[in-house]
């Protein structure tokens, strides 16, 4: 069996996410797919699953040209997917969840054959080697690991042991512990042995060396290289994943790392604990830009949400300018001079149907109060116009509706909102995501101006070059914990990425041809001050 993928391209709102990517999957082989966040891996999988319409895509199965207009077509071709998002319906039981993406066995066309349903479900679980999950249990009671195993098992429903299928898994082990992951590795080995083809996206590099025969590296929407697993090393893969994406870099002349303008700690967080974050302690000085790095799901956004009072604080204290922030809530935090730019600007930030000026002033309406309850519209308009100029907004006027602006200009409106009231602390979550190069440059300038003006800035970003260029220090997060911090003076992208992954000790030693780089990263590793193991 041979699945050929050629010329896979896809752009979202004019911004390319996948550019002319090519892959080959062979029966009896597991291909690993690695890359940074936003390298285009998930986009590629969505095209293959028929979930997104490609801008261009050529797929050949055993030499014959095929098309994948929808997920049913992908299924007919023998493609089986384990997607990254956990699609489990909590109200259904385990067996019923296994059939969410599979045709239900029926009696007389209309009624579910429950006996057959449980029989097929049992077989699928057996194939995966799982016997500790009760099929009649409600899915809401499953642990995250078990829920992931159920989702994985759903890819094995009705697959008889002879059938040669193509399995595509997007970070299947992200929510699994070591023992659970071993179950999956064994299944992957068995599938491979009987001639199935596999594509496995993973952030855990050591796992590639356990399951994959070849590995493909993606970066900035493009396939960079493909190696036999025996002929590469973790060090080489990391190097290729980061590359030198010079296009995104802030202009070199600006590459002055921000240092604190004074020593007074602006923000001091001790042992912050929410439902999605454990024991995070750090501090931040006025005028300082501190980065937060970590893989998807490491808890970076949750750290900002804890500071903003969006997630309820279970334990820990936040001090702003030496004053304790009790029971933080978004309204209180804005009033206290904390500005927040959320990761999902469309769903969490903007009123898309609203006007530019209204979006800018939303958290600050109290400042435009007159006659007890009225809005001083003239002052509001004046301030909005001022801000539009200072963020260099491209719009027909402050009355334009947000939905009509490009992603970059929408983000500038979010920035205008953040700076309107001269904030003391600015929390930025992926401020340049989905933003074109020109707007990116403007945003970098704004961040620097804010810091120069004395605000403290906490910057979450998946773009490592951006973190390195803007920040003096970088906090490292893994598994919802703040595990350490590193000074960017001694850090390069490769070393930062190593810190974000489960740490270098887990990776195989670099092969001889990369010994030089390996030695360098060891030095960096020792420079990074780890708070916890």
């Amino acid at each position, binding site marked *: 069996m041979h699945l050929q993928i050629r010329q896979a391209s896809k752009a979202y709102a004019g911004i390319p996410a996948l550019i002319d990517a090519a892959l080959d999957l062979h029966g009896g082989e597991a291909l690993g797919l690695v890359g940074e966040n936003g390298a285009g891996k998930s986009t590629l999988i969505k095209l293959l699953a028929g979930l997104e319409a490609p801008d261009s895509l050529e797929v050949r199965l055993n030499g014959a040209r095929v098309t994948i207009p929808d997920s049913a077509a992908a299924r007919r071709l023998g493609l089986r997917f384990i997607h990254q998002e956990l699609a489990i319906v909590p109200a259904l039981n385990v067996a019923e969840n296994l059939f969410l993406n599979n045709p239900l066995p029926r009696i007389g066309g209309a009624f579910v054959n429950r006996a057959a349903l449980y029989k097929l479900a049992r077989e699928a679980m057996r194939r995966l080697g799982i016997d500790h999950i009760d099929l009649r249990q409600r899915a809401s009671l499953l642990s995250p690991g078990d829920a992931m195993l159920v989702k994985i098992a759903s890819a094995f429903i009705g697959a008889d042991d002879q059938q040669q299928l193509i399995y595509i898994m997007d970070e299947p082990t992200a929510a699994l512990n070591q023992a659970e992951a071993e179950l999956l590795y064994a299944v992957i080995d068995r599938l491979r042995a009987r001639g199935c083809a596999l594509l496995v996206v993973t952030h855990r590099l050591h796992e590639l060396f356990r399951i994959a025969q070849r590995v493909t590296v993606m970066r900035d929407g493009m396939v960079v290289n493909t190696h036999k697993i025996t002929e590469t090393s973790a060090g080489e893969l990391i190097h290729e994943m980061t590359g030198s994406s010079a296009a995104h870099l802030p202009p070199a002349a600006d590459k002055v790392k921000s240092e604190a303008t004074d020593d007074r700690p602006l923000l001091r967080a001790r042992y912050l604990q929410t439902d999605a974050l454990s024991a995070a302690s750090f501090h931040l000085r006025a005028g300082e830009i501190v980065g937060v790095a970590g893989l998807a799901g490491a808890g970076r956004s949750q750290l900002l949400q804890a500071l*903003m009072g*969006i997630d309820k604080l279970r334990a820990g204290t936040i001090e702003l300018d030496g004053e304790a922030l009790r029971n933080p*809530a*978004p*309204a209180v*935090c*804005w*009033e206290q001079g904390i500005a*927040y730019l*959320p990761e999902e600007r469309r*769903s*969490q*930030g*903007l*009123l*898309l*149907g*609203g006007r530019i000026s*209204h979006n800018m002033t*939303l*958290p600050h*309406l*109290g400042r*435009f*109060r007159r006659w007890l*309850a*009225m*809005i001083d*519209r003239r002052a509001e308009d004046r301030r909005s116009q001022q801000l539009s100029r200072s963020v260099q907004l491209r719009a027909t006027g402050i009355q334009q*509706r947000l939905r*009509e602006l490009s992603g970059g200009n929408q983000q500038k409106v979010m920035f205008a*909102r953040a700076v309107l009231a001269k904030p003391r602390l600015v929390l930025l979550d992926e401020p340049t995501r989905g933003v074109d190069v020109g707007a990116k440059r403007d945003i970098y300038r704004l961040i620097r101006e804010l810091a120069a003006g004395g605000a403290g800035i906490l910057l979450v970003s998946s773009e490592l070059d951006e973190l390195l260029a803007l920040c003096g220090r970088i906090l490292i997060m893994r598994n919802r914990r703040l595990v350490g911090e590193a000074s960017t003076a001694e850090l390069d992208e490769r070393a930062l990425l190593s810190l974000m992954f489960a740490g270098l000790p887990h990776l195989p030693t670099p092969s001889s041809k990369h010994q030089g780089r390996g030695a360098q990263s060891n030095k960096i590793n020792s420079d990074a001050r780890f708070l916890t193991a």
Partner: protein
Amino acid sequence: MSQRPHLSSFLRRYGTLIGFLAIVLFFWTQRPQTFMTLPNWVNITRQMSILGVVAFTMTIVMVTGDFDLSVGAMASLVGIVAGSAFQNGGGVGQAVALALLVGVAGGALNGLLVAGVGISAFVATLGTLTVFRGLALYTSSGASIYGRVIPAEFSSFGRGAIVIGELSIPNLTLLAALALALVFVILRFTIFGRRLYAIGGNREAARFGGIRIARLRMLSFVISGLGAAAAGLMLFSRLSTAHPTQGEGLMLQAIAAVFLGMTMNEEAQPNVLGSLVGVLILGVLANGLTQMQIDTYIQQILTGVIIILAVTLSSLSQQGLRAPEWLRRLLPERGEAA
């Protein structure tokens, strides 16, 4: 941005208004002597005034994306409360104050259930609807309150008018106009109103943007309870009778009026001027059809059909007019319109 055809966006904004004018024109031609006269229009405004007050305050709740299904039952209950106050020797001032207080309390209960406890507005206000109705029936033992217990100055208010030269404006019309003006100012010019629209536009973004959502939703239900209470008193005064179910028709009509109004807004948001047109459509329909001596049951059917038609047309044009092919061919090509 894809450019939508000219006609489509025109239809979206003005379709309902054009429909309203068409209805007016129709009745004018059918009843040329009586329909388009000043006394008749004054009469229409009085007939609509009670529904108007409910619809205008309901608009505030619907701006945040909620509903208040309990307004009709509240209006009934308030009549019984005021009636009971009269029966127990209370004066007009006392009865009115007590009635409005009941409205505020009922609204606060709704707000607490929806914004505090977190029950969906549909379920919570359906529950309180039933409670309010039960309270009204229980308090009154299912009987109407009327006759001499009701002070003359109370019942004369509902039939009275202020005369300015040739024109006599009914008191109830003036009250509705006052409610309209208040809601208009609240939604258009106050910080409170702006925040309500933010909640309705994107609840999560509003919360992340520092809006105290629970508090404001709660307040909007209180206003709607107050509006329902005022409407209940107006109804009581006009009929000189308090019956424990007399306000029931108000809820569906008020929501329908707000929906009709939403069809007139570019962003499909509830807006009080739109609600006014919605109320006018319902009022003119009732008035005109009655003049044409059409059965009230048939009137209901026609009213329902017109509401569905208006909302359907508007949602079609909102989807960039995914209307039938024959209709699309009549529209200018994309881009031309720009």
